Structures are given as C-alpha cells and as structure tokens.
C-alpha cells in the first residue's frame, strides 16, 4: 500500500451507459398513466351520478371506438388532425415557445389546400397534386406561424399573446373570404376540389366503410418521424433544444437564439397547417368554415400528455381521439360532454402529475437504495 504513490490515478474507461430502460420508462409513462387513472375515477363518479354503470359505459366506449372498424376508423381520423397540432405545439415547446395559434394555422393550411385543389386541373396526376396541396397547406400554416416568430425576434412581443390574437384575425379573414367570395350557396364551404383527393382507408379495406380515416394518417406518422430525426439527430435540433432548455447557454454556445425562435415557430405553423389536409383532402374535399374548431387547442393537451416527444404525441393523439369518438358512442347513456370533462381532468392531472410523480418516484427509489 505504502509503496504506491498517492498521485497514481486509476485509468477509467469512459462508458455510454444510458439510464436503465426501466427508469426511463417509469419517468416517461407513469405521469400519463396516473393521469389516466385519475380521469377514470372521475369518469366513474360522473357515470354513477347519472345512474349508469361505469363498467357498461366504458365497455360501450371501447366497443364504439376500438371495437369495430368504423369506430376505429373514426378514431384514426380524429387522431390524425390531433397528431399534427400536437406535433406543432411540441415542436415549439422544445424551443421554449408556446404556440397557441394551432387553431388558425390549421385552418389556414386547410384553406390553402382547398384553394390549390380548386385551382389545379382535374387531370393533374394524383401524387403531384397531393404534393402541391400539402406544400400549400404547410406554407400557409408557416406564414401564419412566422408572424409571431418575427414579432418576437424583432420586437420581443410574447408569442402567446400574438398567436392568440392571430387566431381571431386569421379565422375572421378566412370567414370573410369564404362567406363573401367562395362559398357554395346556402353553405359556409368552398366547392369541392378538382385534384388532390387523398385516398381513404375504406378504399383499401372496405371494412372501414363510412369512416373518414384516410392516408393523411401516414403523413402524420412520417411528420412525427421527421420531427424526431430533426430534434434528436441534427445540428438544428441540437440548437433548438438548447435554446428551449437554456437560452443563455445556447447564446454562449454561438447559437443565434432569434433565428432558432424564428425557425421553431414557423415550422410549428407548417406542421399545424399540414394538418388541414386531413379534413380537406382526406374527408370532405372542401374547406368549411370552422372545421378546425378546437383541434388546435386540443393539440396543446396532446403535446403535454405526449411529453413533447414526437412518438408520445402520436400515442396521446390516439388517446384523445378515443375519448372524443367514445363520447359519441356512449351518448345514449350519458351526455357526450362527459368526455370533454374527462379530457379536462386528464390535462390537469398530467400538468400536476409530471413534477409530483417524479418527486414521489425519486423518494421511493431513494428509500429502496438506502
């Protein structure tokens, strides 16, 4: 012992050991699961207060959503729009920005897709037409998203205020345009598009007959993969997350914070805008005033429950779509507004559970180790 000099340092081989998967899974999954349980209990109480059996109502809810092809198709359809708006919100949040403008960006995207579909001749090849319509939807959403981005970067205007106000402006402008210039008489929607109709799932598998689910779902999943790749594999994503986590450290690291803000909010708008294709190209084939109502805001909840991770957002979108479609399935027994209440409960529970559950988990782990 005494022979070995004190200064002799052990050679340590650096490792790349991620936290054990179980720990990470607990961290990621427990808050939403706890939130779900809380919501279920609240749901039980509500159903009981209506004099119904919770078990029967929940069974009906599941049968009406995941239990048959039509219901499942409707869940897929609703999840598609929510996936887009959820991805949009989470993309902004990763840069530390709260995009509440999903509502108007979605509407603007849908409108642009419809307009493009109307302008393009019917003979346009399908793939080409789809691509153009999607690009138009994304561009329109991006333009709406770039306004708060510019105002924040240039003048320091808070993006929450600007996006909220922009919702009013953009929706009113679209309403004026539709009502004044482009509607089919007696309605508030445009004529049907000539080109760019997305195939429905029912065209591929007839069991989905009647449901609105369409190939926009594939686009949503591709966008989620693209967002994941961008955030976690590219230099732009490195910079974007750095700005979201610690803007001052990002600035120190030579990252142009304003430029990242600009990019994050604009692309958040692009993603939300692309969501417009689900309704316009995939379902109704026209733009209708108010089609996006609520989906933009629900995107915030989807992003929150999905823990701002692109794949989590997809799962959360399915969850909220199930609640929303399930409300219709159980309407005969309890008012479908019950599902709105449950959505609210889930959102509050997740917002509360995230830090709280983490704290409890940490405590439990500490005790186990000691």
């Amino acid at each position, binding site marked *: 012992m005494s022979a070995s000099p004190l200064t002799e340092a052990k050679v340590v081989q*650096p490792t790349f050991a991620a936290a054990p998967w179980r720990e990470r899974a607990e961290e990621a999954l427990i808050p939403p699961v706890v939130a779900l349980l809380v919501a279920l209990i609240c749901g039980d109480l509500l159903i009981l207060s209506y004099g119904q059996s919770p078990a029967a109502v929940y069974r009906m809810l599941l049968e009406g959503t995941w239990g048959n092809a039509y219901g499942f198709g409707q869940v897929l359809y609703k999840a598609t729009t929510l996936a887009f708006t959820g991805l949009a919100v989470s993309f902004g949040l990763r840069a530390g920005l709260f995009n509440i403008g999903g509502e108007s960006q979605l509407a603007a995207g849908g409108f642009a897709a419809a307009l493009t579909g109307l302008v393009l001749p019917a003979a346009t090849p399908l793939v080409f037409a789809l691509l153009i319509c999607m690009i138009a939807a994304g561009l329109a959403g991006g333009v709406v998203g770039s306004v708060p981005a510019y105002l924040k970067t240039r003048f320091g205007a808070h993006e929450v205020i600007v996006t909220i106000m922009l919702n009013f402006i953009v929706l009113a402008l679209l309403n004026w345009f539709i009502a004044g210039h482009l509607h089919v008489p007696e309605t508030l929607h445009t004529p049907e598009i000539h080109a760019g109709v997305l195939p429905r799932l029912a065209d591929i598998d007839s069991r989905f007959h009647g449901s609105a689910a369409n190939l926009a779902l594939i686009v949503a999943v591709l966008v989620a993969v693209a967002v994941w790749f961008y955030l976690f594999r590219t230099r732009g994503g*490195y910079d974007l997350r750095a700005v979201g986590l610690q803007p001052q450290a990002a600035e*120190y690291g030579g990252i142009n914070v304003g430029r990242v803000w600009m990019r994050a909010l604009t692309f958040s708008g692009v993603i939300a805008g692309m969501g417009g294709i689900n309704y316009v190209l995939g379902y109704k084939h026209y733009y209708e005033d108010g089609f996006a109502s609520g989906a933009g805001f629900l995107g915030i909840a989807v992003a929150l429950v999905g823990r701002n991770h692109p794949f989590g957002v997809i799962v959360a979108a399915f969850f909220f779509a199930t609640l929303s479609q399930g409300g219709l399935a159980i309407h005969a027994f309890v008012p479908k507004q019950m599902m709105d209440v449950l959505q609210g409960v889930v959102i509050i529970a997740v917002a509360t559970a995230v830090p709280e559950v983490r704290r409890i988990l940490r405590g439990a782990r500490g005790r186990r180790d*000691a």
Partner: protein
Amino acid sequence: MREGGGGKGEEGGPGIRTGAAQPHPPSPFPLPAIRMDGIEKSFGAVKANHGASLEVLPGEIHALVGENGAGKSTLMRILGGLIKPDSGRVEVNGRDVTGWSTNDAIAAGIGIVHQHFMLVPTLSVAENLVLGCEPKTRGIVLDHKHAADDVRKLSNETGLVIEPERLISDLSVGEAQRVEILKVLFRGARILVLDEPTAVLSPPEVRELWTVLRRLRDKGDTIVLITHRLDEVVEISNTITVMRAGQTVARVKTSETTPAEIARLMVGREVSLSAGKRVQPSGRPAGAQPNQGLEARNIIVMGSRGIRVIDGVSFNVKAGEIFGIAGVEGNGQTELIESLAGLRPVFAGDILIDGTDITRRSVAQRHDAGLSHIPEDRHRRGLILEYTIANNLILGVQKYFSSNGVIDRDRVKENAIRAITSFDIRPPNALLPGRALSGGNQQKVVVAREMGRGFSVLLASQPTRGVDVGAIEFIHQQLLNARAQGKAILLVSAELNEVLALSDRIAVMYRGKFAVVMPAAEASEEVLGEYMIGTKKGNVA
C-alpha cells in the same frame, strides 16, 4: 473593544492563541454544541451523506471543509432543519433533535448565514433585521426608533458596525454580509453556520470578518465555517472537520495540521498548492503560428440604467501571456468578459483578435476567429444541464461535429471519450446529464470543451470557482500549458491567490475601470487589495 479579542492590530499575533485556548469551558469534557453522528442522506441514487459526522465544541470556530459535492451543505441543511436525514442522530447542546424543523432550529439558537444574501434591498438595515418579529407601537405601526436602537445595541456588542437607517441597496457586499450575520444574531442565534462567507469579500473585508468572528467566539458563541480556502481554515479555525464523498474522513485540531495535509485529506491524494508558473519564460515558443493575442481599445459598455459599467478600458493580452484581472466582484469584470465574448453589446471601442476587428461579430464568428471562453457561471451559460456530457462537450463547436446538418454521433462519442479520459471527468459516463455531475466535474467539462478546440485567445472567467482543490490544480495546469503553447489568456478571478499565481501582468478593476496595471512580480495581496477597495488610485489614465 473592551477585551483583547477585538481590534485590528492582532491578526496572526498572540491574540489568536489566547483566544483559541480561552473559549473552552472549564469542564475537561464539555458537552458538544453540535453532535451529528452516522448521518445518511440520499437524493435519489445519490448519497449526499454517507456516514457523516460532526462534533463542534461550544465556543470554538470549527471549519467544515471538503471538495464540492462532499456533502457539507447537506449536513448543514440537516442541522438547520431544512431537510431530514434518512438515518443518524443529531444533537444540539446534548438534546436529541434529529429530524427537527427550521423553526425548531431557530428557536434552539442555530443561525445559518447563506452564501446568497436574503435581504430586501428596498428596506433599511433595521427593517430587514426585524422582518418577521417587528416591534409595534400602536397596533400595526412599526416602531422604527425602537428597532433602530435594538440594532445599534447589537451592532456595538458584536463589532458588526453598520448604520441601521441605511438602505440595503446602498450597502457594499461586505456590509450586506454583516447585516446577514446581524440578522441571525438578532434572532438569538448562538450557533452560527457561515457558508463560504469570504467568496464575495475583498481582503480587507475578510480581515474585518475574522475580527468579528473571533469576538463572537470569545463571547462564547459557536461558529461553523464552511469554506474551500485552506489558508482561511488555518488562519481562523480551532478545529477542522474534513469531508470526502459524503463521509467525514477526519477531525483535527488546527494547530496540529498543515494546509497540505488538509488538502490531501480532502482530495484523497497529494496535491500541489502553488501552481508552478514559471514553466517557460513568457513569450511565444519557436515555431508557433503568428498570434497577436487579444487587444481591447477604449471599451465602453452601458449598464441597465444608462451607467457606464465599463468606462474606457484598454489593454492587450499578448500571445503566451496570462493577463489577470483582479477586483471585488461587481466592478465590471462580468460585463467586460461578456462584451469580449459577444454576449453583450459594446457602446464604443474596438476588440481585436490576432489583429482582426471582431467588435461587431457574433458569438459564433468570434469562435471562428479563435476565441474560446470559460464563462463564470457554468449553470447558466457554460452547460446545458439537461444535455448529456457528450452533448455538452460539443456546445459551441457543434458545427464541426455535423455533416450536412446531421450530427455525427460517432465523432461526438469519440470526442467525449477523449475529454472524459484526459480531463478525468467523473463519473465517466458520457450519457449522464450535466446536472448529475458535481461542480468540479461540471467545470472540467467546460474547460475540456473550451481548451480542447483550436483557439488563440482564451477568456477564463472564474475558472476554478466552486471547484475542489484537486480540480483547481488541474485547471491551473491546463491554463499554464496553454500559455506555454503561445495562447493569449485573459484571466478574471475573485481569488487573488489565483490571479497572483498564474498571471504575468495584473490589472485591478474598480468601478468599471482599471485602477492599475502592473507586472505580477510587483504585485502582492496587500498592494492589490488597496486598489480593489479604491483607497489607492493607480497608473491607468
């Protein structure tokens, strides 16, 4: 001033020794004021205290030393009732108080003076002191006069001289600290815990603090001093407890030990306390690329209220030179470094790196021009705490680790392995988030990154702040190596020792200007100290 304990003229004289011998009560086995035994405390998987113990006798100044993350603060937070131990026993004056609350601790006379001041800047000294226990005259009217009298009385008793009517916002850092100490005494504290009290003080202020602490001790109060600075430990304490990795490794009498031994106990191996500077004479070694270093011409930086926080500072740092800036914190050092780094706009003046004007360039462009920067605040700027070590090691150089915008993960990995090995970053797991590391290891990540890339000018701002002895030695060596390689280094540090030991030339910053610039050979702690507090004006126009 009645007893021999006060007064300024006695530092280092026989007064200390009599003072040290005196406080112990007559009993040969006095009841300890604080006894903590077998303390265990984990936060998640991290064991902050793992068999920690502490025994402090009444009426002594007890130094609690240890590296960062050794568990000193956790132990003191348990003592103060802020957190509860997982197991172990805490006794105060012989009473078992394990797991008590903050209110219990205050009632029992424990007073903790935190590193960060907790004072209301818009209130007066007296008002701050009586916050929470305000003496009232009629109903809700605060009795200012009564409060001021109380404060003045306490102030005279302790030697913590301060005018009760002054506003906190008008006080210097040293005075604010006096108020903090008064505040805990005002609530009846007889056991004082001071967490790194000298970190923000100039040398004369430190001497005043020592005088006050000795006087309190001689009055019979018990003082626990948490510190990093071994010279302070030796100067002021009676007994020393050394902690390492959550454990108490030694309890020694100050008179029976040496700084080198304490350092060895803290780190667990031999460390050299003085940085061996003169490795190589100043100047660029043959064969190095032409490097003109850093030049700043008449820099003016405006503060938030239209005040010039930097008011016409000019200097140059030559290749192969370490230019040190000393000064009490808050005299513009932070602003100067930030403006050089591109994080703060300059109002006027020019900044040149290797002869290229970079005054209007962005942070990234300055990186490209050869600037590297160890920031003073690693939690706010230097690291992204949620990012892994590997990702933190490419902050600022991420563009060199990506091709076509995609991060090259193999090279990030390679880079992490190299940095972790050569800088001995622990734990050596590249996927741990930055926040999981101790302060010293976080700083190693920053230093590894900033010194691992090609640069010609390095801004090193408080490079060893809050870093343990072993890492300080290592970081100093890195700075000296860079100097030997012909880099120009601007060193800003609140540690005078550090500035003195490493620099070739030293400037003292006072109120946004250089008070003096002198060769390190002519500088000493005393000389610099006078410029730091503004009693002496120097040679700089």
